[in-house]
């Protein structure tokens, strides 16, 4: 059995990343279970027949009908619904212990590679005496493959142990629906040990300060990226006008935030936001590994750069070779003209 930690958004819908994880669990069930000792599948449960095999979901907190429907279409055979006063506020240890309590003796536990997913899977691994693999992208008979170096390389590894504990890298797998199941819903109301509640969130402050809000960036359909090539703190005029024309968001490289030209919330990359826009326009960004890690999810990549050989141009779908200020100035003018 593969147990998947599922995150839901404010409206109760299954997060895209969790849908990816569920799809991965379902389509890779046999490969994951082959990693276990003797390659023995967990015969106590129905895993013999992937993809409809046993993928079970854990949802903490409210479980909407919509979510149940979505989990059904993603082939989940059973939903563990955890709801208790102790779990209401997030505490990694308490949540992890609740996961451990329903995890199989042998099998797999996975989550998407979000901050929550990473944290919980590590706690689960420690508490079950297992290893953990972060940012897995594939599983086969030779083991797991996971992203390292922000996606610039892959590490092949074997976890060993009785339980495969891992997180799935973002965009490693496209969510795919399957023949809907009728998931059994098991509700658990665990009580947590006092010790596990020490790291509970005491309060959450919804951002009013735009400087810290990354949601515009991660949800935008169009992101205009700007790098050192902008030249100075005052060089963002053309870029911001283009952002406005596209109703999109500005994303910047780490150099730009490092220089203090823009806030960290606008940073895209390995240590900033990972974005999934329909189009990403990289202006004067050469394409350092750390930055490329954040834009893998962009559907269309457009580069504006003086260096035809730069990584960004080479990886782009479309490119214009030239000075970003000149090119974007002309693009803005063209958009204004076409609008009339």
């Amino acid at each position: 059995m593969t147990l998947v930690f599922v995150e839901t958004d404010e409206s109760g819908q299954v997060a895209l990343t969790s849908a990816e994880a569920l799809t991965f669990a379902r389509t890779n069930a046999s490969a994951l279970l082959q990693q276990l000792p003797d390659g023995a599948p967990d015969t106590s449960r129905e895993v013999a027949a992937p993809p409809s095999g046993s993928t079970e979901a854990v949802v903490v907190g409210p479980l909407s009908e919509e979510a149940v429907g979505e989990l059904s279409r993603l082939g989940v055979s059973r939903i563990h619904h955890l709801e208790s006063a102790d779990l209401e506020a997030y505490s990694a240890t308490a949540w992890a212990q609740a996961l451990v309590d329903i995890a199989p003796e042998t099998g797999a536990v996975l989550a998407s590679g979000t901050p929550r997913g990473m944290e919980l899977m590590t706690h689960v691994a420690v508490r079950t005496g297992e290893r953990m693999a972060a940012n897995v992208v594939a599983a086969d008979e030779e083991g797991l493959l996971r992203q390292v170096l922000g996606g610039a390389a892959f590490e092949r590894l074997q976890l060993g142990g009785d339980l495969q504990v891992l997180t799935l890298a973002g965009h490693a797998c496209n969510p795919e629906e399957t023949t809907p199941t009728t998931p059994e819903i098991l509700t658990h109301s665990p009580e947590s040990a006092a010790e596990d509640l020490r790291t509970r969130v005491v309060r959450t402050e919804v951002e009013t300060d735009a400087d810290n809000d990354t949601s515009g960036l991660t949800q935008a359909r169009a992101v205009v990226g700007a790098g050192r090539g902008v030249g100075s703190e005052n060089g963002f005029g053309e870029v911001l006008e283009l952002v406005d024309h596209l109703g999109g968001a500005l994303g910047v490289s780490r150099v730009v935030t490092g220089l203090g030209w823009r806030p960290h919330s606008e940073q895209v990359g390995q240590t900033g936001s990972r974005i999934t826009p329909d189009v990403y326009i990289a202006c004067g960004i050469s394409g350092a590994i750390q930055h490329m890690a954040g834009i893998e999810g962009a559907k269309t990549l457009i580069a504006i750069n003086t260096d035809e050989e730069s990584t960004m141009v080479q990886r782009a779908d479309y490119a214009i070779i030239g000075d970003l200020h000149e090119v974007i100035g002309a693009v803005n003018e063209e958009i204004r003209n076409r609008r009339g």
Partner: protein
Amino acid sequence: MASIPTQASVVVVGAGIVGNSLVHHLAELGWRDIVHVDKGPLPNPGGSTGHASNFIFPVDHSREITDLTLDSVRQYKELGVFTQSGGFEVARTQERMQELRRRMASAKAWGIESHLVTPEEVVEKVPFLDPSVIVGAFWTPTVGVVDSVGAGTIMRESAQNKGALTVSPNTEVTGIDVENGAIARVHTTKGPIETDTILIACGVWSPRIAAMAGAAIPLTPAVHQMISVGPVPQLAEQTGEISFPIVRDMDTFCYERQHGSDMEIGSYAHRAILHEPDEIPSIEAAKLSPTEMPFTDDDFDPQLEQALELMPDVLSNPDVEIRYAINGLLSLTPDGAPILGESPEVQGLWSAAAVWVKEGPGVGRAVAEWMTNGCPEVDVQGADIARFHPHQRTREHVRARTSEAFIKTYGIVHPGEQWNSDRNVRLSPMHAREKELGAVFFEVAGWERPQWYESNAPLLEEFGERVMDRTAEWDSRWWSPIINAEHLALRERAGLVDLSSFVIFDVFGPAALDAVQSIVLAQMDVSIGRVVYTPVLDETGGFRSDLTIMRLAHDRFRVVTGAAHGMVDVKWFADRLPETGTQITELTSSWTTIGLWGPRARDILSQVTNADVSHEGFKFGTARTIEVGSLQVLASRISYVGDLGWELYIPMESGLRLWDVLTEAGTEHGLVPVGLGVYGTTGRIEKGYRAFGAELDSERSVIEVGMARPKVKSQNFVGRDAHLRHREADPKAILCSLTVDDHRSANGEKRYMLGGEPIRSQDGQPLIDGHGHHAFVTSAGSAPSLGKHVLMAFLPPAEAVLGNQLTVVYMEEAYPVTVASIDATPLFDPSNESIRR
């Protein structure tokens, strides 16, 4: 992807300051169909220009480099990218102050305004410098900074605007085809280009590109560490990129240069950190640029401490942060000079490498002229790529010498200073004997040459005061009074000189006479057995060389020239041979040469040979083979020391035997071994013999150096037209010999000039010749036979008057001198009786 032309008149590789300057000047000189490639993007493709500190201090001890720098500054100013800031070279020690006084001599000699100033005067302009750390400084108001990337762009675009140039960035050279010893085509990542000329101007990568054609550009990438700190409040108050003078902290080998509100600190003080051209990271793998290597903190830490001492107010501020730190790569060569010109290994392969930003545009112009006319207007022969002897092109030699030289970038380098590394590469057959005699070896072109022999120390007593001993440490460094004692022994008895380092080559074949006739000034249609000393001129009538040629047969001429410049001569001749009928073969390693001179030379030689060596039987200026015991010796009766005697040529393997035979025979005649100190300086200077590289260079005419012969031969030769024009015109300068009248300095110690000092009028005014050059000492040395210290200098014709009283400025003190010769007339033995006896 943009396509690339399939044909080019020249492919220029590298779009740094040098390559950009070259395409500009080539286009100016009429070149078309130039293709300019760089593997990086524009305007900064990632080479050394991109991280250069971009400041220019015009004064260098080398006139050649100074001329290139001054021309470069002129060009940067025309391009509007030069900002004058002024610059201080500060001294922390008295030893450095002496060096700065010597620097003043160079400034005056090259006509550049500079002043020695007190610590307080430095602080007036650089208020954040701690005056208690320094003892004085050298101020040059014309120091400035340039935008080298901007200059390159303007120059490249000027060539493009002429329709002369296709620029192809992001284009890597992947191979070079050589056919019949000449460039045939250049392969690039964008396709092949048919061309007969490739110009390699890609700095640290140059050896790698040259190697594709099987040629060597012997330089090594080396690290120059640089950090940038900021923001500095004292600097931020000012507007613009630079408002404070640049400070070179000479004793710590560091510089501090303002850049906006930041201060850049660069260092040449760390260990030499060398890299291999093939191991420089690719553009894709480099964090910053390929030539901005990861910084190694440990190497820089001592410099930080020293910088902090000098500028404590600025640098101890905890808000001033180290924001950028690199191990920047630059190019170093084994002798410190750039590598310019056409490779002697592959026809059509040109190099313009190991050039600093301060010389870039000047080098661009010079090399473009060279490629166009065969000779640049300014003399750059010290940088000729053809100068390297085979061992000097090896990796080992390059690494050894650059490691040793790195620390000398700001060091105090004595003009006579010798290398420690990679010695004993070329040893004469007499080497073991010389060592036994306590020879002190100086090295040239790999050859270990005795400069003087400690075994001659007893001569000091014999000659007493006449050896003109020197008490000042600097004047006597790399010098010994034994040199002067050997000189006197030669003049009075006889001396034996090891001349193994001569570069020797034969020009032979049916058309050999026409070939040499067309290359040299002197009449070469002479009888067999004649020895001819002759200038070799370039198209402008300037000196390419001076050398001797023996006519050994109707169809064979043997050329003998100096070690330092000899390889360039070989190429100069080889390039000018007719298509067929002549060949050239280098024999340097086949023959050793022993010089035997002095009034007793004939007595000694006649004792070991049955040949007729009488004045009538063996005339001056002739050569023939004589038997010395069982040895066949090619004896040539000429002299560079101005005394009776012979150069004796013998196969290498028999050199030792000849040396021993002569030594034994000479004992009763008082023969002594004599070092190159006599041969290269004292012997020649009292005879007024000119030396290539000192008095003779491509900017000097035969007339100016007083070597014009009564008639010019009717046959054509390189530079003939120019030479004829020079003969018609009044000379713009005249080479004179001067004697120093009083050596006493202010503190009473006698001082002896070493060369490079300015010559001024009695009241201290500069003397400027018709070229605009300031008068300076080209050679200096003892003339023991005269008991005088003699200087050579080009003077304005009006000052070239016998008996004219002038001054020489040495270490910032003036000494009286008198013009003693205004042509080639020797001060010693003016009628040359000693030679023709």
